[in-house]
């Protein structure tokens, strides 16, 4: 029976891809209800079927490959799943609307914003063009965009990601829908933008009284947004309940594990060192890397008849020290120059000016042979472990390669070393002959780590090593990295945008913004007592997986007064841009 408050009632929904032998069930017997005015979060890791289930509601599944094999979804007495296309269409974009993960690609590139904002209104609300445009302008203001007239005439490529997501929200809310399905609406956005968008969604929800189905993998976002939560795993519902209950007392093993692996900012506030995972961790030693005054500008390709444009500044006077056995985290949003810095240290990219010393040797001055020798001491692991493994070389071959290059071992000895490394990073002996595609994401990152370890490096630059992984896998990989550091004394230059992860891993933290380090210091100092306004904004924006926490107002960054000058020491070892 349907509750009076129940807006949508999903029963036994089953969705499969392919047919016959290739049939692959994506959603199996999913049931949930959505009440008026509530936000229901559907959480799960990749492949849990959370997106597919909501696409099915709107009839947006790819017609030739996916099929809804069973179940009902009752909305105002009608079953969405069996509705004729025409009726489905009249609901879509009017009473049920949707926003997507990728704001960059979700708007039609060749059409002006104005058309894209108004066409659904004209279609569903019988508005005239002028009425629809008025409504669109109103919505643009509501979602926090300035100069609505101008925006209407713009094309998507002229707007930033955050602005596009605001447009998407304006588009979805303009029709005053009963249900808004938001599919990972902030995943592709920087954390500060995410915070603003989440704020906006909360505000609009209050104003419009819309029910929201929020699809996300981020427990922090869930805690901040949801009234109730449905946890999914491998196409099935694991658990359902009010948000506080799920976080406080998860009943299912899976939910417990999921919550346990979510890093929570603040849990390490009390200690200065990273989490200890071995009995006798190696201590931080001498300075290993010293970078000074690194500058890099990516030149715009100049055109014959036009004056050369100023390039993009990727690094501006970047400098830091990194000691043996220490982790320095480089944090910042996309485009802050943190990856550039990591690559510059390994000389995978040439800087314009500056000095990089590794154990006293100036890396920038090395010749080809010297550089190759130097690369024994420094290895890198990348964000996408799959892409960083050559698909045509076996796992064993990949792990062996750096040792072969540096002529460290050969023949039987090499084979033994490879096997040893596989076991060391938690892989098995019979994995050696396999190819990268036969591994899971976490295993691949282990493979990358094994490959890096082979030459006995002292420094590993880890560029977002876990951001492509599910949280449960992320926790395992981070553990491995900590264990290796504490037993081998590795230094990590740890590049990440995730403050919670950084808190677990880092001894020291450098916050980057627009190519510049705005704050650097001991992790405790920077995270617990941020001095730079940008650091504070960044930390305030991090969603905390604690539904009980009351979020304060977001600090607004005043760009005019934002200190961007040289670093000055505010406390011993704690430097802040002035």
């Amino acid at each position, binding site marked *: 029976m349907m509750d009076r408050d129940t807006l949508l009632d999903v029963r036994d929904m089953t969705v499969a891809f392919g047919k016959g032998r290739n049939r692959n069930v994506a959603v199996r017997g999913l049931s949930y209800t959505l009440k008026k005015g509530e936000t229901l979060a559907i959480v799960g890791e990749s492949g849990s079927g959370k997106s597919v289930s909501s696409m099915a509601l709107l009839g947006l599944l790819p017609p030739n490959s996916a099929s809804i094999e069973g179940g009902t979804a009752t909305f105002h007495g009608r079953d969405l799943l069996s509705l004729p296309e025409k009726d489905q269409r009249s609901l879509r974009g009017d009473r049920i609307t949707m926003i997507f993960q990728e704001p960059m690609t979700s708007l039609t590139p060749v059409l002006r914003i104005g058309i894209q904002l108004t066409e659904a209104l004209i279609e569903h609300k019988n508005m005239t063009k002028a009425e629809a445009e008025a409504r669109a302008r109103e919505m643009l203001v509501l979602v926090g965009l300035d100069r609505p007239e101008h925006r209407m005439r713009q094309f998507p490529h002229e707007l930033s990601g955050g602005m596009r997501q605001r447009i998407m929200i304006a588009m979805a809310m303009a029709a005053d829908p009963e249900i808004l399905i938001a599919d990972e609406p902030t995943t592709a956005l920087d954390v500060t933008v995410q915070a603003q968008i989440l704020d906006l969604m909360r505000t609009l929800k209050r104003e419009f009284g819309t029910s929201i189905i929020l699809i996300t993998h981020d427990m922090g976002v869930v805690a901040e947004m949801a009234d109730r939560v449905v946890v999914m795993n491998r196409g099935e519902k694991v658990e359902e309940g009010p948000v506080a209950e799920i976080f406080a007392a998860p009943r299912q093993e899976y939910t417990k594990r999921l919550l346990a692996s979510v890093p929570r900012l603040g849990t390490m506030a009390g200690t200065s060192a990273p989490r200890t995972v071995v009995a006798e961790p190696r201590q931080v030693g001498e300075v290993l890397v010293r970078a000074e005054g690194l500058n890099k500008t990516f030149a715009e390709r100049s055109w014959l008849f036009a004056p050369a444009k100023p390039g993009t500044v990727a690094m501006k006077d970047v400098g830091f020290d990194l000691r043996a056995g220490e982790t320095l985290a480089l944090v910042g949003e996309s485009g802050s120059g943190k990856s550039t810095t990591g690559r510059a240290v390994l000389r995978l990219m040439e800087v314009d000016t500056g000095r990089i010393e590794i154990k006293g040797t100036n890396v920038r001055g090395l010749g080809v042979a010297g550089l190759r020798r130097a690369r024994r001491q420094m290895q890198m692991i990348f964000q996408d472990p799959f892409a960083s493994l*050559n*698909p045509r070389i076996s796992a064993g071959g990949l792990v062996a*390669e750096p040792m072969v290059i540096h002529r460290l071992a050969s023949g039987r000895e090499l084979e033994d070393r490879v096997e040893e490394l596989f076991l060391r990073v938690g892989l098995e002996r019979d994995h050696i002959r396999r190819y990268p595609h*036969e591994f899971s994401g976490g295993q691949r990152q282990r493979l990358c780590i094994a490959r890096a370890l082979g*030459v006995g490096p002292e420094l590993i630059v880890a560029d977002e090593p876990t951001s492509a992984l599910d949280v449960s896998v992320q926790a395992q990989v981070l553990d491995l990295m900590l264990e290796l550091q504490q037993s081998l004394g590795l230094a990590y230059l740890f590049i990440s945008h995730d403050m919670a992860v950084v808190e677990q891993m880092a001894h020291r933290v450098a916050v980057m913004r627009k190519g510049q380090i705005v704050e650097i210091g001991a992790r405790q100092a920077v995270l617990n007592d941020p001095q730079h306004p940008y650091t504070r904004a960044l930390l305030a924006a991090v969603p905390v997986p604690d539904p009980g926490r009351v979020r304060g107002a977001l600090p607004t960054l005043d760009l005019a007064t934002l200190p961007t000058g040289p670093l000055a020491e505010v406390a011993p070892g704690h430097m802040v841009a002035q």
Partner: protein
Amino acid sequence: MTDTVTLAAHPEDAASARKTGFFRALLSSPTGIIGLAIVGLLLIVALAAPLLAPHDPLRMAAGPRLQPPSWQHWMGTDDFGRDVLSRIIYGAQLTLQIGAIAVGISLTSGLFLGLVAGYASGWAEKVLMRLVDVLFSFTEIVIALACLAIFGVGLTNAMIAIGIASIPFYARVTHSVVLVEKNKPYFEAAVAAGAGHGRLIFRHLLPNVVPTLIVVGTLGVSTAVLAAAGLSFLGLGAQPPQPEWGFMLSSSRDLISRAPWMMIFPGLAIAFTVLGFNLLGDGVREALDPRQRQR
């Protein structure tokens, strides 16, 4: 002349194809099977031509002149009384030779140029690729004509001309694949691991470029066969008495109303061969990149 649908094979899927077996993947698609069958048949016909052909392809008055298809001459006879079927069977040898030589020339040279340009980067790449682009925009037939104007006409020269004419295409494809591969993290990972030029090119780039080029090369055979037949049709390629299909077509023109079989069968042979290599190329692409299958 050339189909420019997405050519890049995706190595990750190629690797998954290896797991299930490349040939099993190839044979699981109708395109692959038909393509393989046609090309296989062609190979057999070419190799066993002396056994299969009922008559000497060059012997005049093997039958009466301009005889329509009959039991003695399944595809009729030409204006010299030569057996058309036998000529077509022997023509398969020439056709495969054309494909192998033309594609051989363009593939090796194009691969080399594209690899060098893509790996070198900087001004060398710019100059090289700009030049390749310009040559590419000349179109293959004009380059081939220019080559023939220089070397003189003849089937061997036509094969070489077609080979040369297609180099820009292969260079472009190689270059674009190299650029894609070079920007993948695994390449940077190899650089970071300290790999030298040789290792980067031969162990990392080349194996990832080759699958795409196998696809392009297979499709390229069909382009080359078409182009050579075209040149022979125009009288710039094969010379008498070579039983080259395009040339046979051109000699059928004056007799098109009196002896249409002289025009129909060689044309079918060309179309069939080209179809075979096109399907095989599509099949190989699908087998290397299962995502294409849905396309």
